[in-house]
């Protein structure tokens, strides 16, 4: 039996489409975990990245923190957090957020910092407030890159949120963890295929969001 057979067997089994362990439930749980983690990471990464990028300072500290955060093993972090905090949502969110903050933070910083300085100078010279310079002049131009950072963070979260299953939570990781335990490889492969599919959907959503949010005047090349 090859992988494709596993996949078709998994998805054609009607038992997998109902109940608390059904695909819709697990998918929805996974999406919830991912959205929560992405929102938290964006809430940290975007403002810090925007402000440091605007003032052009703190780049070194930023990349140091980002490198350190990337070096942390996600799974180890989950185990430690669970031991310290007990079972629950929080120990899962910590490693996911730590995973997602660096790409958001670093690309946002770089995106704002690399905005052409002459419109910024012009904006200040015409008496624009500093917050407006950031939000109305720099941000719209930096948007494509910022979306890029959010996108790679989101993809990483979606694929890593499977770890929630290790600490008794739901999500698509349930199929992988349970399948491995039960030697039910149909389930393992099916779960993995769902995660991969969700990652692709995320990619498509970001593509659409970028297209909708970025002004047609902003050239992708710069």
């Amino acid at each position, binding site marked *: 039996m090859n992988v494709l057979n596993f996949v078709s067997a998994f998805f054609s089994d009607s038992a997998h489409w109902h109940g608390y362990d059904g695909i819709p439930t697990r998918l929805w749980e996974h999406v919830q975990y991912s959205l929560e983690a992405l929102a938290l990471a964006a809430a940290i990464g975007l403002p810090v990245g925007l402000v440091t990028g605007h003032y052009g300072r703190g780049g070194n500290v930023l990349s140091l923190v980002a490198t350190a955060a990337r070096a942390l093993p996600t799974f180890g972090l989950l185990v430690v957090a669970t031991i310290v905090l007990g079972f629950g949502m929080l120990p899962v969110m910590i490693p996911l957020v730590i995973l997602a903050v660096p790409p958001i933070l670093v690309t946002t910083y770089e995106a704002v910092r690399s905005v052409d300085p*002459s419109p910024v100078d012009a904006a*200040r010279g*015409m008496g624009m407030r500093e917050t407006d310079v950031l939000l109305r002049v720099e941000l719209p131009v930096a948007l494509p890159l910022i979306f890029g950072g959010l996108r790679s963070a989101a993809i990483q979260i979606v694929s890593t949120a499977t770890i929630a299953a290790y600490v008794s939570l739901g999500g698509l990781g349930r199929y992988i963890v349970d399948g491995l335990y039960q030697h039910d490889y149909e389930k393992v492969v099916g779960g993995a295929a769902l995660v991969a599919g969700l990652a692709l959907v995320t990619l498509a959503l970001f593509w659409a969001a970028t297209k909708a949010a*970025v*002004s047609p*005047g*902003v050239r992708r090349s710069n």
Partner: protein
Amino acid sequence: MIRIDSVTKRYPDGTVAVDRLSLDIPDRSITVLVGPSGCGKTTTLRMINRMVEPSVGAILIDGVDSRQQSVNTLRRGMGYVIQNAGLFQHRTIVDNIATVPRMLGWSKDKARARARELMERVGLDASFAKRYPYQLSGGQQQRVGVARALAADPPVLLMDEPFSAVDPVVRKGLQDELLRIQAELGKTIVFVTHDIDEAVKLGTMVAVLRTGGRLAQFAPPAELLSDPADAFVEDFLGADRGIRRLSFFSSAGLDLLTAPVVAIDATAEQIAARGTTEAPYALVTGLDGRPLGWSEPDRLTAGQIDVGRLLPCGRPFVAGQDSLRAALDCAVLSPTGWAVAVDDEGRAAGVVSQASIAEAIRGAHAEGREEPRSTGAGVQKVIR
């Protein structure tokens, strides 16, 4: 009036960008700050809208210290144009121009209506309104930059090397456009450039700064060319300042000879009556009176003038409107050594020799009768 009152700008590393500079910038005229790089001209400009704060001294606007009002209020009352236009690439042309009115709280419709009005004023086709900056050429972008600076009708316009990034042909067009707009609007313009020709062409007053941020000379351009204050200014003006100064003398005083002008359908009597006295060549004109070319007198036969065998007459100058410099240039370029003068309509008004242009130059120098520079409109006609 903007008064720069013994202003010094010293940076923390000890560099002195501007050194005890005092300038009175007259209202409703173009004051040009010119000098080599590192002379502090841009710093001086940026101190006027407080993009740079002076270390010592003050800048007074209508007698009031510019630090009396908030930075943003001050800046919203001064248009600001920079080298690469600095347009907002995510906004359409019309919204770029409407930026300051929107900041001042105008409604979107009113601001856009004003923006469209300004597009027309700076010579941009209305079809550009919905385009984005990347769809425009450098020259067009700079027109948008000027329109954006004028949008809220500020009394002061600060321009920092606005035309130096475009090619010479486009630059000349933008300069002429600026003079035209200035003749209509009468703003107080402070204009920074490193190009002395641009300074002489645009400036009502020109401040020449030397490296280290010291004022070398502050004078009207004609005076700058005739009486440079010192060797630095003389050197900065370049080797041909004598020729350039001729831009300020009108060609109105030239003695135009009409006798050598012969229409292509001239009769034998008219050709004979032309005489061969002063000019060695005859200027043949078409039926519409426009010059066609030069002919040797012995080739002139009534009814048989061959246009193909005429010597080219080159570009003529407009009598009375163009300067002596333009007239001299025409004479130098003419194959016969004689310049052709035309009237407003392009019809031949007469011819003039290099010798008699030289005579006029001597006379003009003796009288020192440069054209005054107070209005923009007259000037662009004289300078060609």
